[in-house]
């Protein structure tokens, strides 16, 4: 009650409310609300049966398997290397550390399509890394392994950047106490440090997973876009768009949106529970 009265006064105290509200409202309206309002129109004349048939179609089901398994695998790899990278960046000193720290941002800074064609060339049979694997009879570009590679690329900053600040703030007294009481360093890591960074790690994993699931730019080149084999969900959406099957594309998109929100909510709940 008191708070409400106070804020009414506050609004009068600082000038610029009308101006700020007008500009914000106009821009949110035009950029966000207008496109959002078009969602019902996407399904115009599309029954629930049509919707179900689209999302349970063979092409879509294969794409779920490809997208989810590749995103889970890539995010798992990122979880491991994310912890390693955050650890060495916070706890150790070595030459070019600042440069290394800046490089974590590369996947955010580079256009995804540029990353896509570069990774495709590197991991193809004639590429530098793909050539090595090819000698062992393993193909990477144009197989699910290639999709995993590009998802690792786009996901790594999320994990590192969510663990890093937590590690920086971590009170070292507990570690020292454990050490004095005779715990070895593996023990200290898993019993003292890991529980502290676990929520941040899970949140980074969740964000990397959600991003990988919707990734298009880098995946489209390296996957080869082969239906039932290397077609991810975002490629199915694009495929339907190119055939002007807009409601079909929107149906798959809705499933993707639901899956990404579910993962983010789940990681949020896990975080709260840990606390």
């Amino acid at each position, binding site marked *: 009650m008191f708070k409400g009265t106070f804020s009414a006064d506050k609004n009068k105290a600082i000038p610029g409310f009308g101006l700020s509200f007008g500009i914000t409202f106009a821009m949110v309206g035009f950029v966000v609300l207008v496109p959002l309002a*078009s969602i019902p*129109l996407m399904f115009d004349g599309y029954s629930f049966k049509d919707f179900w048939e689209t999302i349970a179609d063979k092409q879509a089901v294969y794409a779920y398997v490809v997208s989810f398994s590749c995103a889970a695998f890539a995010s798992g790899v990122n979880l491991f290397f994310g912890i390693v990278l955050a650890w060495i960046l916070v706890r150790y000193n070595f030459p070019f550390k600042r440069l290394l720290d800046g*490089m974590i941002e590369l996947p955010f800074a580079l*256009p995804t399509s*540029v990353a896509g064609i570069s990774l495709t060339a590197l991991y193809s049979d004639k590429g530098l890394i793909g050539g090595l694997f090819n000698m062992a009879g393993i193909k990477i570009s144009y197989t699910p392994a290639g999709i995993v590679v590009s998802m690792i690329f786009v996901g790594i900053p999320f994990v590192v950047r969510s663990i890093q600040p937590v590690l920086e703030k971590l009170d070292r007294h507990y570690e020292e106490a454990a050490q004095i009481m005779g715990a070895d360093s593996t023990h200290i890591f898993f019993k003292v440090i890991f529980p502290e960074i676990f929520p941040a790690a899970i949140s980074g994993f969740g964000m990397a997973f959600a991003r990988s699931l919707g990734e298009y730019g880098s995946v489209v080149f390296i996957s080869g876009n082969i239906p039932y084999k290397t077609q991810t969900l975002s490629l199915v959406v694009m495929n339907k768009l190119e055939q002007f099957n807009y409601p079909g594309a929107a149906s798959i998109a809705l499933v993707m949106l639901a899956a990404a929100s579910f993962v983010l909510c789940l990681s949020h709940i896990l975080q709260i529970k840990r606390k």
Partner: protein
Amino acid sequence: MEKSFVKKILIFLGILFLAIMLVLPLVSVLFHAFENGIKVFIKSISNEEALKALQLTLIAAGAAVIANTVFGIFASFLITKFSFRFKKIFSLLIDVPLAVSPVVAGLMLIFAFGKRGWLGPVLDYLGTKIIFDIPGILIATIFVTFPLVFREIAPLMQTQGTEEEEAAAMMGANWFCIFRKITFPNIKWALFYGSALCASRALGEFGAVSVISGHLREKTNTMTLYVEILFNEFELASAFAVSSILVMISLMILILRTIAEYKAKKWEDK
């Protein structure tokens, strides 16, 4: 003894991962761009199509930076300095573009501004076209980068509180004076950082723009779309040459961003 061994292994693992996953792809773009000599490189980036794509990309990124910086300033001022109804809904709506996959964003814009979209008749009446044309590219780019500046500066304005602004207002300062003298100095590096982040995301936008562009080669090609066309036509040298331009611009922005981040941290510590 044991500790330094673990340390060496972890540093080695981390650097190996970064070298293979992040640095190698970057170097490989530059390597392939100049593989067939500097002449091929210059030819691939100086033809009319490439220059037009570069122009459109720069226009779109510029529009996104200007629009979202202006928006970010007013929106964060509104959300953090005033209290009003539906404030929560406002901040939720601002974040929507981050949650939506770019391809889906493109789809939503088609259904809003396209021929069959709900604003289609209005646009027809006005005689303007947005989808499959340059305005559509601009809107798509603004959409995907919409909350970036806001998210950088709003937390800072929140921690600053409203006391100083209130005192200044009491003494009769107008909005612009208050913003310029009190709010702005506190957020300037974060604002710069957010704008740079917005610029780099806008430059590289691919999914949403790809849906909106209609793939009209002469008219609505951005750099990333042009790279895709070249790659699919097996013009690898040209694709990498054009990519290398994008890489160089992105790296420049990344360096500026890192400087801004460093300065912002210093400001916060003060």
